[in-house]
């Protein structure tokens, strides 16, 4: 019984910790209905912050145990509870929620959104049920991620016999360990490393992402927009099938996608709390995979450039950038101190001679990534929809800054992926075959964010003054539910 249920308690506590962080950031008001509405975002915030803290602890010798996990959760929740106290006096009453009205008076929009949510619920329920006994069969799932999780389950620290041993160098010991720590927390709660006990929980990551994206963008996009688009994303085999391989690409893309949404919202509303949320999510992406670091740098680079052009607070942005860097440093310092190096020759990646010698790797990489992005059977038209949303925004002038952000981010991440294949020491065909269908997760999540966000703004503009979204102050943050 413990093996079945206790890992779900880990998820619950992650949501509690994340709620504390959101309360501390004042992204969510201390009201039951508002906190319930933010549970998806809370779970991912907890799944971002708690493992990062535990990794920092591991790097300085603090053991990874359920006790330290509970302490971190309590600190996050406690800080949130204290910080949110001062909010209570000035809080606004809860808004009338449309689905509390009689169902006969629901508008068609609500029925459509409700149908999409019901289908999403069906998919997640069937998915979790099907994953109850599903083993980890993906190569990297057992060879890299679960192997490390197993070590973090059996041992409380980064034992030398594994983490710095040349015998295990092929398991990419330098890779960030956010995902193995998340896995290990579940295994520890279960009391045993069980290859069948993990994949049911990855569905929670997907459910939480959809929930969080809808929560963050609900002030910008009506349910008629976000519900079908997020259903498309969840139902895309490129998303859920990958999650069930036990690879870390989609979990990383989930963090990066929420980071992109938060940054886009910050660019349009200049609300520092959204920038803080972006920091949390991008740091988690960077701590999950090296591609996540690249995505974080790309997204922050684009947002910073737009901030400079638009005269936004650069001091805030610099602080945010520093926080992301600080969050990823513990693991990087630990690996550097123990002589662990990755197989990507990053320093050569800016050497013109090295790049020229390997320029024949560029076009095949561009082509292969393009082919994967064009696989609509896997990605359910998210990219064409995003392209239309960006084009419509740029032409109409609605949300042009945000469209520019998403477009430039997509291009820069694509360039980053091509660059990584360009400089990789691995045989190109082999490398592309094994990874191209996975590494496009981040660009696809940027497409999803762009489609929901921009279509939402365009539909608001189309609805005129009567339906115009209240985008002068972000309604989904703190002041209302």
């Amino acid at each position: 019984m413990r093996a079945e249920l206790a890992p779900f308690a880990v998820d619950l506590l992650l949501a509690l910790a994340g709620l504390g962080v959101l309360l501390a950031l004042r992204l969510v008001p201390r009201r039951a209905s508002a906190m319930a509405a933010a549970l998806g975002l809370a779970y991912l915030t907890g799944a971002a912050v708690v493992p990062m803290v535990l990794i920092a602890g591991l790097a300085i010798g603090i053991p990874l145990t359920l006790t330290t996990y509970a302490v971190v959760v309590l600190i996050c929740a406690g800080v949130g509870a204290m910080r949110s106290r001062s909010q209570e006096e000035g809080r606004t009453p809860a808004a009338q929620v449309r689905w509390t009205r009689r169902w006969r008076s629901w508008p068609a929009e609500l029925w459509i959104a409700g149908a999409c949510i019901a289908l999403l619920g069906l998919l997640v329920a069937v998915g979790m049920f099907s994953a109850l006994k599903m083993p980890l069969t993906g190569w990297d799932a057992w060879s890299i991620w679960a192997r490390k999780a197993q070590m973090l389950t059996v041992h409380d620290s980064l034992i030398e016999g594994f983490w710095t041993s040349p015998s295990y160098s092929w398991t990419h010991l330098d890779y960030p360990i956010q995902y193995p720590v998340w896995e290990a927390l579940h295994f520890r709660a279960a009391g045993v490393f069980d290859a069948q006990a993990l994949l049911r929980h990855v569905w929670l990551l997907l459910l939480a992402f959809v929930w969080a994206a809808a929560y963050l963008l609900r002030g910008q996009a009506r349910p008629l927009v976000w519900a079908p688009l997020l259903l498309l994303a969840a139902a895309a085999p490129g998303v859920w099938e990958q999650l069930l391989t036990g690879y870390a690409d989609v979990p990383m893309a989930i963090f990066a996608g929420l980071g992109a949404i938060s940054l886009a919202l910050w660019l349009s509303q200049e609300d520092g709390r959204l920038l803080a949320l972006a920091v949390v999510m991008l740091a988690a992406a960077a701590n999950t995979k090296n591609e996540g670091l690249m995505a974080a740098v790309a997204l922050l680079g684009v947002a910073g450039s737009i901030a400079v052009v638009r005269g936004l607070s650069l001091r805030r942005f610099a602080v945010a950038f520093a926080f992301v860097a600080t969050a990823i440093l513990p693991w990087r310092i630990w690996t550097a101190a123990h002589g662990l190096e990755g197989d990507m020759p990053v320093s050569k990646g800016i050497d013109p001679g090295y790049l020229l010698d390997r320029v024949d790797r560029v076009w095949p990489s561009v082509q292969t990534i393009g082919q994967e992005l064009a696989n609509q059977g896997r990605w359910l038209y998210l990219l064409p929809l995003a392209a239309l949303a960006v084009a419509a925004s740029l032409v109409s002038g609605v949300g042009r800054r945000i469209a520019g952000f998403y477009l430039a981010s997509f291009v820069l991440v694509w360039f980053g992926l091509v660059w990584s294949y360009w400089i990789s020491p691995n045989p190109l065909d082999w490398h592309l075959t094994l990874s191209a269908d996975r590494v496009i997760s981040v660009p696809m999540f940027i497409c999803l964010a762009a489609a929901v966000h921009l279509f939402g703004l365009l539909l608001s503009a189309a609805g005129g003054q009567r339906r115009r979204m209240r985008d002068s102050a972000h309604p989904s943050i703190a002041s209302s539910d």
Partner: protein
Amino acid sequence: MRLLGEVLVALGIGAAVFVVARRVGMGAQRALGAVVLVPIAIAIVLAAPTFRDDLTSLRDQRREYAPLSRYQAEVRPGSEMGFAVDFLAWVKAQFAPEDTFHIEVGRVPDETDVAGVGVRQGAIMQWSLFQLAPHLAVEQSAKARDLKPGEGHNADWFVFYESEPTELPALRFSDAMTYAPGFSIARARLAR
């Protein structure tokens, strides 16, 4: 390029929807709304079969994996690749909790080498190290599978996978136990 074509089709649909909406008398703003909603509706309709296939696929996976025992699930990747998972389970049962090991994987005649490493040998070694975890491998060279002088010196056990203890100096180990021809283990002489 297919991707460019798909993007152009999407933009074309958006433009066509806008033009048609204007022709039927919608204002520019409402036509913009149609540019949003019609493509989303088209995408949902096109994706409907995929959604059905998703559910079918998940149901099939459930049927496939439900009968697996915990052991069968744990060794599933290795058994799918044709590795000797039962031998490795037997090996693990011989180890004391803190025991370490060094594994010798033999080469098959048609072994394919990539960057100096036999692909099959490498796969077997990676899987074996996973299945034998949390026992730790020591002095396991990732590049060369052959036991070098001194390599595995500090291991408690030698594991011979498709190889024979006779290929090593007998002084290095004792108490060899054979699971099947080509599959055996031996206690290292210097083991704790």
